[in-house]
């Protein structure tokens, strides 16, 4: 996790809010560093994490996680991390008997219907341990990313329904958290993606939006991060609701600074 980002969000692994949906989105840049941040953050916070990883392999996340101080291999072995490796298991879908349920079986269906099997997988992975001993603090669902589901033929409403049911099971029933990444297509006219992004934004408590600089690529400033706190059901609090910072991604950390205050130009 990135300590500077924790400071900006005013949170630590020991002191987090529960029952919240955090939406990560990126526009004209790669926002996957936020996914790595939250993965290592919640593992360090001793939470049970279910990671639906659809775009990268397990070893990729493991290598980055080691730089951030967590071992995904160890977490998976001790049961803290349940990892759905989309790239590998999507191939299994085609070599299994059709009757056997598989989370990604929508890939086999002619009319891609719903993500109910993925929801069942998540609910099963994060259900509380029945012996009553809470080994982990609260469950967390991490999804990287939701836009790829649209590319795989699902509709925006189907993905929104999946997130709705995950909110019911994780945020409401178990007071856990959800973090999901959605790409913003920006100028490209992708109505389905816009519906997905706006629909999730309305349900989110925190939106982190990584944007490329409007002036183009820069060696010392890789982008800017907009943080928007929302209160979907409560009157807006008096604190700052929106902050914008620029950032630079380094080998093992990300440094944040106010706009125009990059150390390279001061």
């Amino acid at each position: 996790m990135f300590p500077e980002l924790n400071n900006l969000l005013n949170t630590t692994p020991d002191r987090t809010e529960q029952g919240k949906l955090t939406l990560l989105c990126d526009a004209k840049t790669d926002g996957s560093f936020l996914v790595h941040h939250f993965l290592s953050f919640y593992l360090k916070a001793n939470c049970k994490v279910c990671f639906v990883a659809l775009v990268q392999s397990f070893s990729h996340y493991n290598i980055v996680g080691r730089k951030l101080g967590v071992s995904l291999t160890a977490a998976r072995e001790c049961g803290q991390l349940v990892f759905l490796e989309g790239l590998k298991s999507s191939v299994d879908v085609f070599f299994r008997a059709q009757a056997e349920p598989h989370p990604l079986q929508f890939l086999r269906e002619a009319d891609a219907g719903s993500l109910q099997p993925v929801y069942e997988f998540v609910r099963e992975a994060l259900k509380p341990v029945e012996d009553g001993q809470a080994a982990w603090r609260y469950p967390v669902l991490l999804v990287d990313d939701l836009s790829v589901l649209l590319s795989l033929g699902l509709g925006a409403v189907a993905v929104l329904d999946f997130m709705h049911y995950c909110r019911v099971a994780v945020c409401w029933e178990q007071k856990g958290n959800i973090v999901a990444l959605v790409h913003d297509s920006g100028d490209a006219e992708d109505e389905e993606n816009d519906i997905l992004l706006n629909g999730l934004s309305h349900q989110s408590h925190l939106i982190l939006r990584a944007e490329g600089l409007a002036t183009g690529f820069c060696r010392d400033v890789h982008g800017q991060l907009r943080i928007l706190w929302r209160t979907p059901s409560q009157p807006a609090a008096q604190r700052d609701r929106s902050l914008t910072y620029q950032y630079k991604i380094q080998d093992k950390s990300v440094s944040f600074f106010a706009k125009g205050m990059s150390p390279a130009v001061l």
Partner: protein
Amino acid sequence: MLNIIDSFQMRPGVGGGRIHGVPPLCPEGGGSAGRDVIRGRRRRDRRGLEMESVLALGGLVLLRDSVEWEGRSLLKALIKKSALCGERVHILGCEVSEDEFREGFDASVNSRLIYHDLFRDPLNWSGEALPGGPLGALQAMCKRTDRGPVTIALDSLSWLLLHLPCPALCQALCALSQQHSRPGGSSPVEPVRVLGLLHEELHGPGPLGALSSLAQAEVTLSGTMGQASAHILSWRPQQCPARQTQWFSILPDFSLDLQGGPPLESQPHPEPHTPPVDPTAHVTFNLHLSESERAAKDSLTLPFQFSSEKQQALLRPGPRQATGRIFYEPDAYDDLDQEDPDDDLDV
């Protein structure tokens, strides 16, 4: 906004159209300025009365919000207002849980809320869905049998629009908004107010237009500098649509606090302790004039300035002073022609 709130307090046939909470500005009417203000306020009140009568008829009110300016807290504030007036409020909850929706309401309000839970299992994935699914739940609200004035809140209309065909939803909304008449027909009809929360970024112009055509009023939320505003557009039969912008904020107990106008722009005042900087203090050239230089400058006559002295000098050329003379030594190749080429002109 003031008028939507007042409409929640007034029902037709009650009182003589008196506006609550508007004290007279100057009871003695001192001065024409005071009279103009009173006249202006009465004009606004008259328009407010018209809007109240439109909203008091019932019907669909759309609350259009966006990601930045969420509308659920306003919906809850209007629900609280209805409940405190003794109305029963039915809520079709699709986006948030019942606990989260009831949070912030006190017991007197919560006792009048009836929450129809579509949040927990809207698509019957867990086997706990309401019978008939979303459309069945909506149609069941049309057939409710409770008496008295009622407000129906749809949280949210966007969710219903994404999951139901637009025509079916519009038909159900029409059926919901129709006046609920008691059996027997002799007692006056009770209007039904339907509040629909709509996330306008999620829908195209077609469905939005269809819902607008069904609506009695539309409240679009926006704001500036942290202060929310509501742009209210209401339609009355055979009259022009009425528009009003109201700045407001919602208190933690979901009471509405109406503001008079937009927040003042924060002006960039300089620090009062630092004196203004003189830009001419540190330049490398002289911008100032001494007294003698100033006198010489003021007395200087510009070359092309036509004054009476110059006019006289031109009309009566004085003795030649230092006029210029031209000395020319012709070359061998010069062809000097002494003839005046204009000699043959007869002018």
